[in-house]
């Protein structure tokens, strides 16, 4: 009874503090999620649209000021990045052209593909979601039955237990 009364008499200031704490909790959660989310970025140096956007013959790619990665035409490499916004510097070895771009990765995606020719040309859609073949979700009708979990690890018979099948007649 007393507890109920005490709950009803919650001061507005206390209520505000509690709501503030809940809001702070979710803000912190969102902050650490966005700052700590790791993405795999594939750096793709392949020509597009039948040669409309040619690949770099030899390009140095530096992500966030890290050691540059050298890519030749038709090469692909990957980097692991934390957070959403990143600075990419492309340096063409052929003509010494230097291109600096800032990219923003979509938060929910694990693996993305960055087309270097598209990025250099400043075209839209330089970043695409990449789904590796082995990680593609199985088709609905190919879903494994739940019972398979049990059949994968059959229970071992107890030592000395009778065999499950009768021996063949002599």
């Amino acid at each position, binding site marked *: 009874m007393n507890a109920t009364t005490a709950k009803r008499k919650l001061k507005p200031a206390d209520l505000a503090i509690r709501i503030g704490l809940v809001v702070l*909790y979710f803000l*912190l*959660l969102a902050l*650490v*999620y966005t*700052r*700590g*989310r*790791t*993405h795999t970025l594939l750096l793709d140096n392949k020509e597009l649209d039948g040669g409309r956007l040619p690949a770099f013959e030899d390009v140095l790619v530096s992500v966030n000021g890290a050691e540059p990665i050298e890519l030749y035409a038709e090469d692909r490499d990957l980097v692991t990045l*934390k957070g959403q916004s990143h600075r990419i510097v492309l340096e063409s070895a052929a003509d010494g052209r230097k291109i600096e771009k800032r990219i923003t990765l979509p938060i929910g995606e*694990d693996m993305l593909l960055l087309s270097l020719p598209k990025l250099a040309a400043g075209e839209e859609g330089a970043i695409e979601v990449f789904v590796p073949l082995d*990680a593609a979700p199985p088709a609905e009708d190919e879903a*494994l039955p*739940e019972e*398979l*979990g049990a059949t*994968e690890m059959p229970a071992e018979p107890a030592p000395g237990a009778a065999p499950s099948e009768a021996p063949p007649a002599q």
Partner: protein
Amino acid sequence: MSGKLDLKRFLSGNAVILVFVLISAAAIPASKLSGTYIVQEMLTRIGRNSFLVLALLLPIYAGMGLNFGMTLGAMAGQLGLICAVNWGITGVEGLAFAALIGMPISIALGYVCGSILNKAKGREMVTGYMLGFFINGVYQFTVLYFMGMVIPIRNASILLSRGFGIRNTLNLESVRQSLDLLWSLKAGPYVLPMSTYLVLAALCVFIVWFRRTKLGQDMRAVGFDMGVAEAAGIPVDRTRVIAIVISTVLACFGQIIFLQNMGNMATYNAHDQTSFFAVAALLVGGASVKKATIPNVFIGVVLLHVLFVVSPRAGQNLFGSAQIGEYFRQFIGYGVIALSLVLYATRERREAAALRASTYGAGRKAAAAGGSV
């Protein structure tokens, strides 16, 4: 006579710590490990384990004994780490995320634990221990069946091949030592995980500050005598629940710190012995069921882990088998808890007998004095 009594009191009061010092003193030379190696191990292990041991202090202040229910918090921390690995959140942010996910779970579990312990006053330790087993079943059910089946898991590499349930061992490479290496200092041959030490220092400051607050004073009053505290208007049950909730949340954070240092997690049994080792360390440090201080924590962690480090090698060198050292380590761990509890019970009984004798003795003397008049 007085000197003899003082020595006896000192020996009985510090029996556990003295036994440990003696065993360690004998085992260190036998192990033939270098001093540098042992000191570096201690510096690492202080950072790794102390947070969990510090989590035990508040329930002791509240008179609830050693909180074996801290396993619940450890499980909450592990659930947080599974979420961090699942969503690909790495580094210190991954640890913070795990702590934020684990915190509400540990608050809820702590509340449940505290409420149950209020129904089992006087038998908190065994009740907490049993509660740990019960919640362990719920945890295993959640992680083994719900995750991947009901709770979506996007990171297929942490799932069992059957498609649901988390793998037996979780690789924590994405958060491995991210707190320890955030700021580490090299002092001669030693590497000091300063950021972890700072977190420990902050917790120590919090505990010292908390003891001086109104709630902290209430907790100590409840620990001293529940009846008197109740009569003084202190909400005893609520105070005890708060002590357990804080302890459980700290255990959640402590388990995250422990596992980030290890770099991998035994999904289904990493929490099994969390409370056991934390309790053993605290008791080795000279604490009892009723009294524990911050120095007890650090003394205990160092002494227990010196033995943990040197005993397998001492066993190898003395008996030709490291396994003997492992057995030694196990029985020392359990033995120290048993010895401490027995000593505590003996002391309590002796003090009660002395009090009884003095009361009756005074009564008899008064009666004798009255009779002679």
